[in-house]
């Protein structure tokens, strides 16, 4: 089995990890580890970040050869600092991720991705190889295309179990290997169960929602997830447009920055554009309503919710906001609200 590299953010390009001969291991904030992060980070801080740190402090992780952090938001940046404090011997790389999308930021990010690639090859004592990176990107793109196909099927009809199945595929890519995820995806393209009616079509988005069981619960609660936009779902499996630039790292920078972005990334030529994108995704996926799952204390998302709410209201699309830690643990508390919402939407 390959040695593992830990990471926490969807802007981490998995093909670079695999090209360097490592397996990816995305650290999800799911653990029975005791709450200890408060020793190093403030209590009013992102629960995702704190739970990831709890896992590190409790050694609730497989053996990792190194950690990749992305300066995507203040909390992630501080996680890198806290990790260094908690595990000072771990090799760590922290990438600076620009907030805006323009030529200068793409140039800068491409250099950051190149720095990441070179560091990973060095950590594994492997000679740096652009060819290997391109090969891994090709596989990753096949996976991204399969994920997209499954999402297309999801948006057209309600097939029980397809949403949780898709999540299992994505989690495999995040915590094991692209190869395995690809095999799973190719087997899932044809739904196992026939299409059914009677569920309320809903577009869900937010920070992260990684537990496949959550999607099964949604179905029990009368919801048909037509599409999702989380950093643990399609936003994670980014198709890398290799033709975007001659430089492979710039192609990656363009693809990662221009995909449906996390709330922390903005198109400064269209302030508040995230709201329009959410409306567009909801409409494209034939959803009748939208639910957002945000992490408590997540400034980038919480500050954009009023704009999103306003844009959805303008289109008469019902909207439900749920705040928590985005794990199964908090989901039970949301059941009544979700059921009431889907009942209101009807079928």
């Amino acid at each position, binding site marked *: 089995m390959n040695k593992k590299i830990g990471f926490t953010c969807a802007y981490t390009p998995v093909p670079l990890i695999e090209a360097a001969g490592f397996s990816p291991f995305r650290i999800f904030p799911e653990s029975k580890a005791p709450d200890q992060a408060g020793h190093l980070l403030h209590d009013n801080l992102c629960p995702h970040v704190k739970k990831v740190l709890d896992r590190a402090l409790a050694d609730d992780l497989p053996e990792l050869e190194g950690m990749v952090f992305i300066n995507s938001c*203040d909390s992630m940046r*501080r996680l890198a*600092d806290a990790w260094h404090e908690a595990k000072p011997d771990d090799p760590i790389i922290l990438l600076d991720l620009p907030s805006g999308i323009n030529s200068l930021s793409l140039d*800068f990010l491409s250099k950051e991705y190149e720095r990441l690639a070179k560091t990973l090859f060095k950590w594994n004592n492997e000679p740096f190889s652009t060819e290997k990176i391109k090969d891994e990107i090709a596989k990753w793109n096949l996976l991204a295309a399969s994920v997209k196909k499954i999402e297309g099927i999801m948006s057209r009809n309600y097939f029980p179990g397809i949403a949780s199945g898709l999540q299992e595929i994505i989690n495999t890519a995040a915590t094991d290997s692209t190869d395995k995820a690809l095999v799973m995806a190719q087997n899932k393209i044809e739904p196992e169960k026939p299409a059914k009616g009677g569920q309320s079509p809903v577009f869900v988005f937010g920070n992260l929602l990684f537990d496949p069981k959550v999607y099964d619960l949604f179905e029990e609660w009368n919801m048909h997830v037509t599409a999702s936009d989380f950093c643990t779902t399609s936003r994670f499996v980014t198709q890398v447009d290799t033709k975007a630039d001659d430089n492979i790292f710039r192609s990656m920078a363009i693809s990662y920055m221009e995909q449906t972005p996390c709330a922390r990334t*903005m198109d400064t030529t269209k*302030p508040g554009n995230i709201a329009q994108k959410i409306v567009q995704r909801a409409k494209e996926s034939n959803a009748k309503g939208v639910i957002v799952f945000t992490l408590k204390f997540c*400034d980038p998302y*919480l*500050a954009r919710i009023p704009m999103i709410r306003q844009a959805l209201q303008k289109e008469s699309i019902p909207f439900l*906001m749920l705040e928590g830690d985005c794990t199964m643990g908090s989901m039970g508390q949301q059941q009544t609200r979700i059921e009431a919402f889907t009942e209101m939407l009807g079928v």
Partner: protein
Amino acid sequence: MMYDHFDNAVKGITDKLNQDPEGINARKKYVLELSKLGKKLYSKDENIAWCGVTAPFDLLGSMDVTSCFVEFVGALLSSTQTAGYFFEEAEDSGFATDSCAYHRAVMGAVLKNAMPEPDFIIGTSSPCTAGLAILENFAHQYKKDFFLLNVPQNYTQDAIKYLSSQLEEMVRFVSDHTKRPLSKQKLGIALENFNTSSTLLKEIYDLTKTKPSPVDNNILKDFGTVITLLMGSQEGIDICQAFKDELNHRIKTRRHHDSKEKIRLMWIQNRIQYPFPINEMLEDLGAVIVVDELNDVTWEPMDPDNPFESIAKRMISIPFSMNASERIKHLQDLACAYRIDGAINPCH
């Protein structure tokens, strides 16, 4: 409402200063200049830019743009006890109750039309993602153009080049809006003024290191953060000079010995803005806040022949822009230099 507030402040402080033209009152002069800035922001006949905290105010000033970070207004609303009214407005519109109070207050003020409409907005990724998110909301709400300065946290050649290129882009963006090109002469003067102010700041901070310190708990409150709004101008130099003179005067007249300083404290990040008698409480205990975290000069002098790189280096060098170990190292250096007995870290 806000224009009247600043106008009254300008009149009131000017009257007081005129009554005692030889008086030693640096803080009054400082508040007067800030009130004049506030008045300009609300006067409707200036080119206005709402900005992030680490924006290059000297560069913007040299382009005849009246600029300010939004948290300045948040602090003002808090200190005048009007923030509650604006919190309600922001929260009713969906802004989370546990989000930053500075930003909720100013967002409420935007929604209540209590903030002057800017000509454009300059966001900065440092010091916080919340500040950037609020400025995007400003741009969305006012339908104004938005320029974003990404401040990298690593002090590398690539990072400096990236930020200095962004500053050049920003100049083009500003010129497109004001229809005025950057005058190299004006920028040169602004940077010279900035350097003169920086030298004075270093002298001020050296004076405050004296034991007992000539400062009281109020005189240099949040000084390092807010003086950046004036640096680059003659007014900034005059204010720094006034503070230096006042501290020298205190030392000369041994007034600082009256403080009965028993405990020397450092204040981490910025002070409490709402009315709360912490300064007096500390004073009763013989505790003096001798240094605020951002009361320091962390940058090299600006090079008028290489302005953008100089400014970029300065922006990255601010402790909030760097990683935690750099910030902690900075705090440790201050702790040693000021011979402090303890530190206060508030959370707003």
